[in-house]
């Protein structure tokens, strides 16, 4: 035990003496957090420029339509005198869509056969869908109001779809969805990058010879390295959690009695993976590149940004055999869906088993390398 702690203390002291390493360990979660806060921290995360071509002239109806569109909050209107000019701006991507109120729009509204033309930039299909759905919804709601006021009777839709989004606890927004994914960053990146340097650095510097010449067993070397890497990963996680709470104030279930074991096991998986890369890499540069590549590839498989259901079938299958997927899912379930210990029993078991397997592989690789 003395030797395990000795290695951990030595690695931790060395970490704190390397100012650049300390800086980037803190800067990494801070930058990621600030970036995500800037993107997802707003109440309305989307706004699009829309070109308006009003061929019907200034009427009470067209004025109220344009004022209504403006007040939706997700559209910024730009008026154009003719369609050709508006289309030029659309092609130049200065506006996302061009909405034309045709001549006679006001009159046809009273005749109940009004139509408008909407041409949307198709370079981003998600944005196009948002604009189309938003404008269609606006006109449906506008017509309801128009009908009620004009005919003094309540407009009845032929079929009413009563849709509502189900939330466990409070209503969740963008930031509530993104924060659990962000907390997976240190589990994947910090843990792997930190532990990757552990063995390969000692080997490069020659100090591994000193360790190998001592009576410390290979498993204890790995445990000592793990303790130090765990400490550094915890710093990243802590910074991320604190910043998430301070900057985003997400309405999430911060059940640390469940989050801590999942994050611990997730970190252990990442660290073990890093140690394996460390034993294979021949130079710190090679090991660092390998760890970064593995982490970048894995982030798409484990459901950090989007549910793995979005992935093609073969990628989903691959994602399901990656232990970190269970950590990401469990963190999301705890924080968003108020999962209980029973709900996360499978991820806990999976992560425990995978940690043991990965450490087994790490020990074999380390022993094989030192006995060469």
């Amino acid at each position: 035990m003395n030797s395990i702690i000795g290695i951990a203390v030595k690695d931790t002291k060395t970490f704190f003496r390397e100012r650049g390493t300390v800086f980037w360990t803190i800067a990494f979660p801070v930058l990621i957090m600030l970036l995500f806060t800037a993107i997802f921290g707003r109440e309305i995360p989307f706004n699009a420029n829309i070109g308006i071509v009003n061929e019907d002239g200034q009427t009470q109806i067209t004025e109220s339509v344009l004022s209504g569109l403006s007040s939706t909050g997700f559209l910024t209107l730009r008026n154009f005198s003719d369609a050709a000019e508006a289309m030029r701006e659309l092609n130049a991507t200065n506006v996302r869509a061009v909405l034309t109120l045709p001549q006679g729009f006001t009159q046809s509204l009273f005749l109940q056969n009004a139509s408008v033309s909407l041409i949307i930039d198709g370079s981003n299909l998600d944005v196009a869908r948002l604009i189309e759905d938003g404008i269609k919804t606006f006109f449906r709601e506008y017509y309801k109001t128009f009908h009620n006021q004009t005919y003094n009777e309540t407009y009845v839709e032929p079929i009413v779809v009563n849709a509502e989004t189900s939330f466990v606890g409070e209503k969740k927004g963008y930031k509530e969805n993104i924060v659990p994914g962000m907390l997976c960053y240190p589990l994947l990146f910090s843990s792997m990058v930190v532990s990757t340097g552990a063995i390969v650095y000692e080997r490069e510097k020659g100090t591994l010879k000193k360790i190998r010449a001592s009576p410390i067993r290979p498993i204890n070397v790995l445990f000592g390295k793990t303790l130090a890497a765990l400490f550094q990963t915890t710093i990243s996680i802590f910074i991320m959690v604190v910043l998430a709470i301070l900057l985003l104030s997400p309405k999430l279930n911060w059940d640390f009695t469940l989050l801590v074991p999942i994050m611990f096991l997730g970190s252990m998986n990442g660290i073990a993976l890093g140690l394996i890369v460390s034993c294979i890499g021949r130079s710190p540069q090679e090991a660092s590149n390998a760890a970064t590549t593995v982490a970048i590839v894995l982030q798409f498989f484990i459901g950090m940004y989007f549910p793995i259901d979005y992935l093609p079938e073969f990628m989903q299958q691959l994602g399901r055999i990656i232990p970190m997927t269970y950590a990401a899912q469990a963190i999301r379930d705890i924080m968003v869906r108020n999962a209980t210990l029973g709900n996360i029993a499978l991820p806990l078991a999976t992560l425990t088993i995978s940690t043991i397997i990965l450490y087994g592989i790490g020990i074999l690789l380390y022993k094989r390398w030192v006995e060469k």
Partner: protein
Amino acid sequence: MSEGKTIIQVEDLAKHYGEVKAVDGVSFSVQEGETFGLLGPNGAGKTTLMEILCGLRRFDNGRVTVCDFDLTKNPYRVKASIGFCPQETLLYDLLSVRENLAFSASLYSLDRKKFKERVEFSSKVLGVGEFLNKKVEKLSGGMKRRANLAASIIHDPPIIILDEPTVGFDPTIKREFWELIKNLKANGKTVLLSTHDMYEADEICERVAIMEKGKIAALDNPHVLKKTIGGGPSLLVKVKESQQDKACRLLEKYDCTVVDSEIRVSATNPWKMMTEVSEMLASQGVYADRIEIVEPTLEDVFIKLSGRKLTEEEANR
């Protein structure tokens, strides 16, 4: 040679790297309290042999016993009995000397009390006390080597293995280091060191094994080796390079050897022979830059055994 019990026993040890026999059937023993040297040029197999003894390398054949523990069966017991100090400085630059010593102590599970005692010992015997709290990156080369040795023996091992401990040192620091090794011996330690410096081996080793191409070519007390293999005193004749071939032809009738630009002539009566050789060469138009009588050294022993020189330049080539 010290009369004590055998502390290191090596029997028919072999280590191959493909076709290359790095260690080829080596056998020797080291007695408790002895300072034992492995002398040979680079590539002779000294470092491989030492790394095997320290459990850093596997071996293909043979048997190694250290402090009565079989290396194959009890590698961790063997490692705990040895303090290994390799050529390179294995310290962490960003940590202080004390922190480095503490780390080394933790590898051997030393308790606080023992650690404190050993730090005091290192300060007294190895002189690390004056820079204990300095970061390694701030130390001079000599200080680093002393700290490196202190870290290697922090666990108070009975055996200290030093791989080329003074390579690259200037003569003053080299002598200081020899004194440190003598101090360790005076403290009851068994020292096994490798070197390609014949003076070092002569100065501090009680017995020397001369290694060449993975084998032990000779093993004994330096004095005995010099006397039995190095022969008696000889004449060292140094002539201009342009006249070397001619001088060699003229001296052929004597028992002579040419190594680099020096001609060594065996001499039973060196004073008489010096005049004779000098006059004979001069009569043939060869004028010696230098003729002197030299006592045999371990280098002569090596030359006799291998036919080549054992200088640092040679070894580093």
